[in-house]
Every structure is written in C-alpha cells, then in structure tokens.
C-alpha cells in the first residue's frame, strides 16, 4: 500500500510519527463524492451537444454500422421502404410524413450514440495533446543516444531530467524525482516517483520536474497507458458487454415476434376486407419493436464508462463495469479508505501521581517540532481540551529538539533544564530506567488497555529537578472517516459485504472494524491472505472487488472480479487490475459499484419503458387500421384520436420524440439510491413500468391534438 503511514500497532508507532508523506491523495475528501450525501450522477447534458453530434449521426446511417443494432437496423430498412413507397405516390402527404419520421427515428438513435461518444472524444483530445512526440535519451551501455519515443522497446533504459517529458511507460530503476502527472490525472500537485517500492511507475507523457531518473520501459509504443486511455474514452476499443449482448438478443427476439405479428396481419386483413397499405404496416412495425431501448442501448453503455472517466477512473473493459454492479464483497484497505490516513491523539492519560494537565503540557512541548499529522494532532488536542496555547518554536530560545530516529524511536525536546520525550513505550521506559528514574507501576497497564482498545499508546516522560519519570500516555486513535458507518449500512442494504484489510494486529483491527461498522476484517494481512480471501469468496459464487497498488497486490488484483489499481501504484498492479483510479482514492470503489449498478438499472428501466409503451400504440393504430372494416373496433380508440392517419402519425412521432426525450436520462443514468432490491424494483416498476404504460397515451393524444390543428391533413 502506498499509504505513507502504515500503522503496525503499538510499539512500532514511532516509525510513522516521522514519516513525511510526499503526497497522500487518498487522504483527501473523495472528489465529487462526499460520503453520505453523494450519489452517482452524470455530467450535465447540454442540448448543444445534439447539434454538434448531428454530422456523426448521419454518418452512422451506413447500414454496415446500423446492422450492429438489430432493432434500429429494422427501422432503417423500414425508412428506406417507406421512402420508396412515398416516391411512388408523391401526392400522398401521409406517406412522406411517415417516411420522414421514420428517418428521424433512426437519426435520433444515432444521435444518442454520437452524443455519448462525443463526450469521450473531448477527453481524448485533451489526452492527445499530452502525447506529443518525445525524444528519448536511451542509455546504450554508459553512452546516451537520442531516439524518437516511438522507437523504444520493452526493456530499454532511458534517462529523464528536470524538464523532460517521459517518453514511455516504465518503472524507475534509479533515482528519485518529482513528476507532474496533471496530463493524465488533472491533479496539478507533483508526485514523487522513486526506484524500488510501490511508487516506481511512471507514465509516458508526464513531465519530470526535478532531479534525474533512469526509467526501464515496460510497454511498447502505441500500447502505452495514454494510448489505451484515448482508445477507451473514445470508445474505439468498446466491445459489447455480456449483459448488453444478452439484452440485444432479447430485443432481437421481440423484434422478430413483432415482425411476425405484422407480416401475418396482412393476410388476416385481406380476409377481413381491410387490406393495409405497406406504409401503415411499416409504421405499425416500427411502433411495436422496442426502438426506445434499441436506440439508447449503446449510448447507455458508453455513458456508463464515461461516468467513470468523469470520476477519473479508467475501466479497461465494459465487462468490469458490469461486474462492479454484481459485486457482493468489497475488500477495503483500512488506511485512507475507512480511516483517515493518520491516527490522532484522543486523550492524555496520566499515571498515578500526575495530572492530565501535566501530561498534556509535556506532550505538547515534545510535539511542537513534530510536523507529522500525529504530532500536530497532539498539539491540537492539548489546545482544545486543556486550553494550552500553542507555543511556537521561536519562543523557546534554548530549546534543543531531539528528532525521531529509527534507533531511538523517540522524539522530544530539551529546554530550561527539562528533558521531555515521547515515543514507543519500550524505548521511553528504557530511556527513563537508563537515567535511574522510576517507571510508574501502572504505565504498562495503561498502555495495554489502550492497545487492546485498538489504539496506539505513546509514553510521555519528563526529566526535571524531580528526576526522570513517566508522566502518562498519549492515546492515539485511528479516526474513522465521517460518514463511513452510514455508507457501510447502505452497502449492507444493497447486499454487499465489506471486509476491512489492514496490517494491524487482530485486536486493533477488531476495534476499528467495530467502530466503522464493516462486516468483517482481515488483520495482519499479507498479499497471500488477500488472495486466499478472494478465492474463498469466489468459491462461494461471490464477486469480489478490491483496490491495490503494490506489485505484491498484482495477483490479487488479477484474481478479483473488479480490481482497481491506484494510479500511484506500480505498473504491475495497473496491468493486473481491470480499472485504474487516476486519483488513487480507494474510497472510490464504492462509487464504482454504484455506477455499475446504475448502468444495469438504466438498461432495465428503459427496456421496461419501451415494452410498456407498446400497449398505447396498439390502441392508437389498430382501430385506425380496422375501424373501417369492423366499426365496432372504433371503441378501442380510447384516446379518441382525430383520424386514422393522424393516429398512426402521432404514434410514430411519439415513438421518435421519446428517444430524444430520454437521451439525457440514458447519458445520466437513472437515479440510484442504495436500497434493498425489493424497494428498488418497486420504485423502478412504478416509474418506468407504469409510467411507460401511461405516458404514451398522453403523449400520443397531445401530438394528435396538434396534428389535427393543421388544416388539410385529414
């Protein structure tokens, strides 16, 4: 884990108290998603996009493109045929009107897809700018040679110095540098990249700001991360996902059923003495086949990927996004996801014979020069709880600051003849005893109590005129992020089990797990443990999602159904996962699951809507077709549409316009709230099932009213 602060439980605490985080992005509040309130939503839909995408929509009329969507292909064939019939009877306004609206239906469908793709294209253009042709300084033995970035091969070593653009994806094998990765992450703060460890991966197109590094190239030109990103956001690499294919099959079979119903209708009609014009039959066919969902299906898929991109997550396949909706077990890293990155001081506990205020005073004094978050939190607690004014280092003229070292595992200050130390209990006790001081009997007991509660105890000791002695204990606690508990309750309602992964000992882990409200935890987790846990869950038929960034996470990331690699992680991790989070924010896993679910819900909702729509269309068209032969059938005309032609035309117009009306919904996704499956189904059935049944009755009636106002069209 890149978490710069890695709590290992009591005793080793001190090591963290001095580590200086270079950049710990996942300590930030998750972008665009405040825990608790945030819901997945999409970007705003701008009607101007419709106009801008129009040329693309026309280009997509190519039958070779259309045939990929069976439903819309049938509509296109219908448009061609109606146009032919209209040409043969040029004086019939009705034929022309139907032909025009059928073409519009196809164009609207293409428009939906083009708009969805257009949003990705804009992002791709930005990325392309980052992909300027670079000249690489390739190492050839000791010598350096200049080659174009495109000629680099896997395994080449290249040198980059301040100001250079990194020519390709690779791992730093020598040196440390700060790198500006804003080209891909949009985050302007530079990040540190160094050889070895989990922060060695660099991405082509990013810029070295300081120092010199040697990079070993790990990908071929044309297959770099930026190339893949461009492909992904443009949708060039888009393949239909399993569920999309299944839905397409269902839609195709419904299309066949309706084709059958319409084709066989003509013989029936001839027998009834009411032979129908081909244009009317084609209009009926287009009204019945599920055009609404057929038109929007691919836009929904593209928009789903796009919603992830907007959150700076790159899904390597649509399959992964779908799998995210099915996830039933989430493996969440404790640090940065469940807790804030650092532990904070919660209380000062005095040993017998001292007061809290004394401990607070000493603790504050020893922490003034400690710039770690833990150190700062001690000063803050002393101020808030004990009213101790923060003393500035400058006020203490003679102060001699004792910095933390890995050997002493303590830090502190010598000032005015007083020596204050704080640190891991073993070290502090040793320090006191070394100086002939006494350790209060209850010191050990107090530290044990804190450890058992999942906290980290730091001993505070003072040597003054009364001799060296232990004053008390600072209780450092992991602080669970605000709103996480509620989040886990929601996840549970959605049927998702959360497992906290931590390097802490089981005691500490349990305490935090209880406080955060996760369902389970894995303490002292090794990569092997994680792998075993994933396999165990999968053996029970569950889908598992996890985040990871280290090379040793790679096998687990590959094994997980949804593996989100942090962008700060190694290239091995990024290869293994099926998503990359450019913000490196593990909390986003929850959003990814929600986006996956939202994608599926949108498909289901629009399918239901589309099928339910047909009922009203029958009531419009069937009486219009047959009321002449069987006057009784006019009583099916419950909308009281003004004339047969107007009824059929109104149904066709409604059918076309509803596509445009639903484009924003398809792009944004239907509203999603984490509730149980039952509640969600009830709500969506009411809105899209019942709504889909009723809406067209109203819509067709209104269109008919408008049409009947046009003179001469009866």
């Amino acid at each position, binding site marked *: 884990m890149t978490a710069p602060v890695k709590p290992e439980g009591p005793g080793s605490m001190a090591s963290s108290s001095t580590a200086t985080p270079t950049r710990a992005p996942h300590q930030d509040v998750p972008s665009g998603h405040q825990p608790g309130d945030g819901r997945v939503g999409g970007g705003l839909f701008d009607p101007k996009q419709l106009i801008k995408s129009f040329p693309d929509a026309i280009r997509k009329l190519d039958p070779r493109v259309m045939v990929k969507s069976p439903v819309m292909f049938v509509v296109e064939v219908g448009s061609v045929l109606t146009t032919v019939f209209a040409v043969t009877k040029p004086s019939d306004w009705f034929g022309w009107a139907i032909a025009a609206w059928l073409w519009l239906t196809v164009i609207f469908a293409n428009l939906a897809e083009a708009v969805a793709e257009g949003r990705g294209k804009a992002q791709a253009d930005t990325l392309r700018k980052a992909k300027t042709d670079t000249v690489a300084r390739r190492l050839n033995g000791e010598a350096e040679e200049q080659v174009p970035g495109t000629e680099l091969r896997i395994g080449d070593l290249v040198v980059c110095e301040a100001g250079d653009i990194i020519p390709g994806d690779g791992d730093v094998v020598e040196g440390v540098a700060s790198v500006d990765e804003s080209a891909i992450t949009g985050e302007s703060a530079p990040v540190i990249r160094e050889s070895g460890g989990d922060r060695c991966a660099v991405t082509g197109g990013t810029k070295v700001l300081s120092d010199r590094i040697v990079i070993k190239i790990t990908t071929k030109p044309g297959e770099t991360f930026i190339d893949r990103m461009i492909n992904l956001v443009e949708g060039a690499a888009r393949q239909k996902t399993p569920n999309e294919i299944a839905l397409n099959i269902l839609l195709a079979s419904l299309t066949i059923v309706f084709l*059958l119903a319409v084709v066989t209708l003509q013989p029936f009609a001839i027998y009834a003495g009411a032979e129908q014009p081909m244009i009317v039959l084609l209009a009926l066919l287009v009204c019945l086949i599920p055009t609404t969902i057929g038109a929007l299906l691919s836009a929904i898929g593209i928009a789903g990927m796009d919603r992830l991109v907007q959150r700076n997550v790159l899904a390597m396949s649509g399959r992964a996004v779908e799998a995210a909706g099915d996830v039933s077990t989430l493996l969440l890293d404790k640090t940065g996801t469940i807790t804030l990155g650092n532990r904070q001081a919660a209380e000062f506990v005095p040993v017998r014979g001292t007061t809290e205020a004394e401990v607070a005073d000493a603790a504050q004094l020893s922490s003034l020069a400690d710039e770690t978050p833990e150190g700062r939190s001690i000063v803050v607690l002393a101020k808030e709880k004990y009213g101790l004014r923060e003393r500035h280092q400058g006020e203490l003229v003679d102060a001699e600051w004792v910095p933390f070292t890995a050997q002493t595992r303590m830090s502190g200050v010598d000032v005015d003849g007083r020596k204050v130390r704080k640190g891991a209990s073993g070290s502090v006790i040793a320090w006191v005893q070394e100086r002939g001081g006494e350790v209060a009997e209850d010191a050990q007991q107090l530290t044990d109590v804190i450890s058992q509660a999942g906290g980290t105890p730091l001993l505070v000791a003072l040597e003054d005129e009364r001799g060296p002695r232990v004053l008390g204990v600072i209780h450092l606690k992991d602080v669970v992020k605000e709103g996480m508990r509620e989040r886990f309750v929601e996840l*549970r309602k959605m049927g998702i089990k959360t497992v906290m992964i931590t390097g802490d000992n089981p005691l500490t882990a349990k305490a935090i797990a209880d406080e955060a409200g996760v369902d389970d935890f894995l303490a002292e987790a090794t990569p092997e443990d994680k792998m075993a846990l994933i396999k165990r869950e999968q053996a029970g038929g569950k889908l598992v999602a996890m985040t990871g960034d280290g090379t040793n996470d790679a096998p687990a990331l590959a094994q997980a159904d949804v593996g989100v690699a942090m962008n700060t992680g190694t290239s091995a991790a990024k290869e293994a996962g099926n998503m990359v989070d450019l913000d490196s924010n593990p909390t986003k896993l929850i959003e990814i699951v929600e986006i*996956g679910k939202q994608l599926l819900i949108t498909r289901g909702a629009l399918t239901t809507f589309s099928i339910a729509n047909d009922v009203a269309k029958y009531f419009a068209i069937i009486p219009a077709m047959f009321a002449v032969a069987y006057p009784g059938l006019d009583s099916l005309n419950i909308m009281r549409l003004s004339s047969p032609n107007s009824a059929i035309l109104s149904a066709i117009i409604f059918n076309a316009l509803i596509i445009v009306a639903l484009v924003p919904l398809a792009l944004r996704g239907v509203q999603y709230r984490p509730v*149980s499956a039952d509640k969600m189904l009830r709500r969506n059935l009411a809105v899209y099932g019942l709504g889909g049944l009723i809406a067209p009755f109203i819509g067709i009636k209104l269109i008919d009213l408008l049409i009947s106002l046009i003179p001469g069209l009866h």
Partner: protein
Amino acid sequence: MSPILAGVLQLIALIAALALAYRPLGDYMAAVYSSPKHLRIEKVIYRCIGANADAEMRWPAYLRGVLAFSVVGVLFLYLLQRLQGGMPLSLGFASISPDQAFNTAASFVSNTNWQSYSGEQAMGHVVQTAGLAVQNFVSAATGMAVAIALVRGFARSRTGDLGNFWADLVRGTVRVLIPIAVIGAVVLVACGAVQNFSGIHEVGQFMGGHQQTNGGAIASQEAIKELGTNGGGYFNANSSHPFENPNAFTNLFEIFLILVIPFALTRTFGKLVGNVKQGYAILATMGVIWLGFVALMMWTEFAHGGPALQAAGAAMEGKETRFGVGSSAIFSVSTTLTSTGAVDSFHSSFTAFGGGIQLLGMMLGELAPGGVGSGLYGMLVMAIIAVFIAGLMVGRTPEYLGKKIGTREIKLAACYILITPTLVLGFAAASMVLPDALGSMLNTKALGAGAHGFSEVLYAFTSGGNNNGSAFAGLNANTPWYNTTIGLAMLLGRFLPMVFVLALAGSLAEQQPVPETAGTLRTEKPLFAGLLVGTILIITGLTYFPALALGPLAEGLS
C-alpha cells in the same frame, strides 16, 4: 339458487379440493423424482427396454431419449391406425387415411389430442386403448420428465447431469399417473360413466328415429384424458357426452383432475430447489391468471348481451343444462389454460369475448397452470424473461434461483418464446390466403360471420401449436391441408420448445450458484409474482393483439 351463485360455489369447492391435494401430491411427486430406489415393476420395464435407469444424462442424452421415445410413439400410432381395418376389435371401422393418421399420431404423442375424427365413428377398441390411451399416459409423463429436468437444472450446480429420462418417464407413469387415473376412473364409473368393451348399439329415439351408440373403456380413458391434460375424447362430443361426463359432480371432478397435477408441480418444484416459497410464487402467478380468466369468462357468459341470451338468462347455447354456465365457464378456462383441450361445452358457441378468453388462454403458452410438466417449464421460461428485465432494474446481472441469466440462457429462452407465435400466426396467415383452406370454413364472410370464421382458423392453429387440442368447431379440419399443417404445428410446438428447455436446463446445471444477498431480486415475493403476470400478459398480448382484434374483438365489439 341463482346460476351465478351455483357457479361461484362450485368454484370455491374446486379451489378447496385443489388446496387439499396441493401439498401431499406435490411432496409425493418430489419424492418420486428424487428417490434412489426402483420399484420391482419398474425394474422389469427397464430390463425390457434395455435402459440403465441409474445412469445420469447430460442434456443432449436426455433430449435424445425424449425424441427417440416420441418418434417411436408416432410411428407406432400411425401404423396402428393405418392397419386398423385388418385388426380385431375394430368395431368394423376402416383404416384411417394417411394424412389423418399422421395428424392423430402427432396429436396424441404431443399431448395435444386434437381430433380431426369422430372417436365413435372412426376408432375401434384397439386403437383407442392400446394406442391413444397409452399415449395419454406416456406423453403426459414425458412432459413431466422434461419439467423435472429443468427443475434439476436449477437445483443442481457444477454438473451437466439432469437425471435419467427413462427413469423419470417410467416413474411418472407408474407412480403418479396410473394410480391417480385408476382412482379417477373408479370415481367416474361410480358416478355413472361407462366402462365396458361392448360394441355398437342401435337405440331408438323418442321422436322415432334411430341412433347408434357404442360403449368402450370410456371412464378409464376419461380419467387420464383429464389428469394428463390430454383432452382427446372417446366421443366426438368429448366431455359433454353423458357417457364421458354424466353429471355436475363428475364435471367438477374432471376439472379437478385437469388442474391437480399442474398446480401441485409448483410444490414439487419448490421442494426440489429447496425453497417451497419459490414454488408458491409460481403457484400464485398461475393461480391469479387462472382465477382472473375464470372471473372474466363467468362475467361475459352471464352478462346478458343480445335478445337470445337475455331470454335464456345467460349464454346457454352450446352448454349442457346439467352443468350450467358457471361450471362450463370454469371447465373451458381450465381446459384452455392447460394443454388439455377437453370440452364440456361448445367453445364456438361461447360469446365472442368468451371465445377470445379461450384463445388468449392458449396463446399465453398454456402456463397457468398449463399442461402436466409443460405448464411448469413454460412458466419457468417466462420467469427467466421476467427476471432478466426486473433483475436489471435492481442493478445486478439477472439471476433466478441463484443461477445467472446470461447470454446463453436468454438466447434459449428467446428461442422458446418465438416458436409458438411463429407456428400459430404463420400457419393461420397461410390459411387465410389459400382457397383450399378458406373452403373449410363454415362461417364465412358471405354468411356475415367473417370475424367468427377467422377466429375458427386462428383457434385451430393456436390449439395445435400450443398442444391444447380443443376445437372451436365450425371448421372442417379433416382436409389434407389442416391435417398436415396442424400436425406439424403440434409436433414442432411440442418438441422444439423441449429442445430449448433441456438445453437451458443443461446450461443452468453447469453454473455455480450465486449466494442470495439483500441486493438479490426476491423471486418468492408477491411483487415478483405480479411482475411475472404482467410480463406474460404483455408479451403475449402484444404478440397476438392484432389477430385477436380481427377475430373475437371485432366480433364482440360489433
């Protein structure tokens, strides 16, 4: 007592009887199909047919068993009819013509029992008992076996094995159908149905004329005809003939026999998948549709539309006075919502809407409760379609009973729902343009009954394609065209769906089940049952609405 009250009381009695039989019969069938032991008689049968009844079959092997057995059945029945003229106990009837023999063989093997002949004027004792009655048992047992194989597909995981067709076939016949049919026959005989091997009697009529009437093993055939949802009557008048169905009690009893296995199979299903609530949800879906149709039918038949009906107090034309309107309405709905097709009243004489309800009942795919076995698997396929759409709306890859509904499953389910509409609408449309076929219609446009005439043809193919077997009458179906096309519709409408059902079962059985969580669609809840009802009604309604509009709706609304 008013006729309406009588109808409602009979309905209540029927529901009570079905409710009493539901659990014991359902549990018994679950035990039959999961028992590891064979009865002695079964072992003898396995030895005779050379089957290893303990060998597990994957779906292609299971399907081969179904098809091989049925092909042999068709050939045997065809030859029996073709050779009837030369056989003893033929009552002097001649051999049946090739097209009619094919039609009848297809009809009985496919559990349809469409009859383009008059039983008492064409079939002798041998054909009736050794041919038709035997198929009444085994075609029903075949349907049950396929349903059980599908249920095993849901219940089993990570295996392709679906059980053994021969064992399922023999057990269904020996342990389920025969015992109940024997009891049923005894009850019918006790209530006055005829059971003998006597020949043709000439009897005098009150008005002085003469009429021929024959005896036969009628009660025994009647019992399995209803119990196995077959429907092929010993007499042309079917269950309205007093020898088959003497009184109001036997009428109600026969309705009970029609419905008891299809409804109880939902309990068997629940038991076998380890969650009886899932079975209840399917039962509720079937029950709601059945009851809704009964209510509609009673309403349209009791409503006094037109002067003739007002004079009679209800639509009495074509109904037996000893059964009354209520009981006849229940019978006709039950026979068209199952694949039975037996009739105790003249379907063509029902009101136009009544005829529409019968048509729609068959068009639903006969799954509420449907034929023995075929109703259950038909309903489960529809459940897969409903789960697919609804499952998406809860944000997960759809799953039913822990099995994911992926590309392969939806492909097979989609093929299944395409078959009958193709057969029904395709053949009906062809009949509307062929002069020969139009010539069979007795109600024509020239007679001012165009819509009714169309309904007759539509009904014939709906009945054949859905393996119902009831006829709307008014159509001379004993012509080469109808014998052949309806025969094809019956065979394809029976066995193509079985291919897809068994493939589906194989695909489901191979899957690893997904554990249920709070995010899982609860398919045992009323909400899902309601959704399933809606899916069935909307998908069928949309498919057949134009055809129905030109038939019963045009007639009824004029």
